[in-house]
């Protein structure tokens, strides 16, 4: 699905990422741990193609196509979807209109909003006066409509109260076509073997992993991916020993 080779990224004149290599196969969900300011959001931004993240070397392949130079909207149309941490307010554009944009006017906004408890927000301006949790739900509503093949979430649990975190997790699972969200228990096995949707999730706390199981975890440290492994083991290691120790033992 996604393959990154020797990627280096600068913001302005400041190098942030170097030597990043990552492969996310179809159907896999990867999780990205790492301390603040180490470049996790930069990696997601560079994959999406936001211009402020300047790729200085390396390649990004999506579905076998080199998208390193592709503009943001081409990546979006090819199937990359992102939830950034602090999306801007767009004055005069309603959530309903945004759902229309995301789905190319194909989605039933009322139906999707009901599942995310967002019905009352459909006529509001996107992100205007939204709380942290409301922003996440609004973003997931948009992404549900967008149906990306690679879902990237930057700290989906930040600012979300405990009550709503399950809602956020379920929504992410729905987009990833995971879990038993649609009551098709009989076809679980089929679901697992035919999974095509991939994910890349940044998390500090790991809370989201209780709802969205990850296949592979990585630790981003000082601008590069320092180690990879089992998500739960790695999270426990980080929680008990801290990032530095965790990286050492992995090396």
């Amino acid at each position, binding site marked *: 699905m996604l393959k990154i080779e020797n990627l280096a990224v600068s913001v302005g004149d400041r190098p942030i990422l170097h030597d990043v290599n990552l492969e996310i196969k179809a159907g896999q969900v990867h999780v990205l741990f790492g301390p603040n300011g180490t470049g996790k959001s930069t990696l997601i931004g560079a994959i999406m193609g936001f211009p402020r993240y300047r790729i200085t070397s390396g390649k990004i392949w999506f579905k076998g196509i080199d998208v390193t130079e592709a503009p943001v*909207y081409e990546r979006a*149309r090819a199937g990359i979807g992102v939830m*950034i941490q602090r999306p801007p307010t767009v004055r*005069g554009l309603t959530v309903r209109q*945004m759902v229309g*944009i*995301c789905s190319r006017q194909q989605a039933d906004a009322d139906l999707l909003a009901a599942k995310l408890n967002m019905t009352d927000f459909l006529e509001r*301006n996107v992100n205007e006066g939204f709380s942290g949790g409301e922003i996440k739900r609004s973003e997931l509503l948009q992404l549900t409509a967008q149906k990306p093949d690679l879902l990237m979430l930057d700290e989906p649990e930040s600012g979300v109260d405990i009550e709503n975190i399950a809602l956020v997790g379920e929504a992410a699972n729905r987009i990833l076509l995971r879990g038993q969200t649609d009551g098709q228990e009989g076809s679980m096995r089929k679901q697992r073997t035919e999974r095509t949707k991939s994910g890349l999730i940044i998390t500090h706390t790991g809370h989201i992993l209780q709802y969205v199981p990850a296949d592979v975890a990585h630790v981003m440290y000082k601008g590069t991916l320092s180690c990879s492994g089992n998500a739960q083991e790695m999270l426990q290691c980080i929680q008990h020993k801290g990032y530095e120790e965790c990286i050492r033992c992995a090396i």
Partner: protein
Amino acid sequence: MKKQDILKEKAKVAIDKKAVYGADIDLDSYLEHGKEDAPVPDLTALPANQRKQLETIGLDTSGTGRAGTYMQMDHSVSHCDVAADGVEIMSTDAALECHDWLTDYWWRAVAPDADKYTARAALHQEHGYFIRALPGRKIAEPVQACLYIGQEGLIQDVHNMIIVEEGAELHVITGCATDPNVKKGAHIGISEFYVKKGGKLTFTMIHRWGEEISVRPRTGVVVEEDGLFISNYVCMQKVKDIQMYPSTRLTAPGAVARINSILVAPPGSHMDVGGKVILESPGTKAEIVARTISTGGVIINRGHLVGSAPESKAHLECHGLLLSPGGVIHAVPELEARTDNAELSHEAAVGKIAPEEIEYLMARGLDEEEAVATIVRGFLNVNIEGIPASLAREIDRAVSEFTVNKGA
């Protein structure tokens, strides 16, 4: 001396008086006498290009969904019909003949000697519309009025009046335009609106002038006790030079004014558009909201709130987007409290579109041009309350025409 003569004498003194704002227009450079245009009993019989032009300023040529129509072409009343009970529509000179009392309102909200434009209209007036909602009558559908210049080089001087009697409710949509073939011309429009006790007037005006047209509207509004005046002004096409500064007086408790403007100035346009609201009585409220965009033209957006009575409350909001390095947006918000208990506030911001907003929409699949157009349409989408759906649609339609490449 008769009232009318006194007004004319005042006007004569001011015939060369320059206006406070705006370039000084040489009124002698325009044709003073228009050819007589024949009445048009059926507006749908007009040529297709004229009909199309009229539709873009909100005039339904079939009259469907309208409580009546007034249309003036050049110096002639082309069409006038009333399609609802409780409303009067005619030219102002016809109205002065059939209502003796109308002289009590004539030139009361606008002074004939304010500047050379008001003076000219007082001395050279060629019709204008008179629309009146009778006491207690709530006119559900909007009345439409249109002032049209069809003759090259002509100056048009009109004097309009709207009277909403006690407890009445009236919606007016007026469109001003030039024929697609007309390049040069001038329009002077005096408008006096009176909203009586408990009355409600929504006034929506869409302008679509030719590229070499100079426009000088002069508007005065008087709102009485518990009256409501909502004004929506939309001008999104190139106009050489427009300057207007309508003044609204809230004269008694409970009077409310909401004044919204949507301006888009393409290269070569000069728009000096603003408004003043004077809160003369306790318990009055006002709101002025402007959204301005320059794609290369000049916009001067003035707003002035005068709180002269205690417990008055008003807010002014002007937001401007500069989409071209060649454009100018000059916001001039003014707050003037004349009592220690007036609550006046303003919010002004002028700048470019935040790149984060464009990128956000691009990450949802829009290309850059679509993203910019979407943001601009949202920016222009002032949420206007209290107007009928048909008027909201006209405004939406005008706004949705915006594309970046065309500039408007």
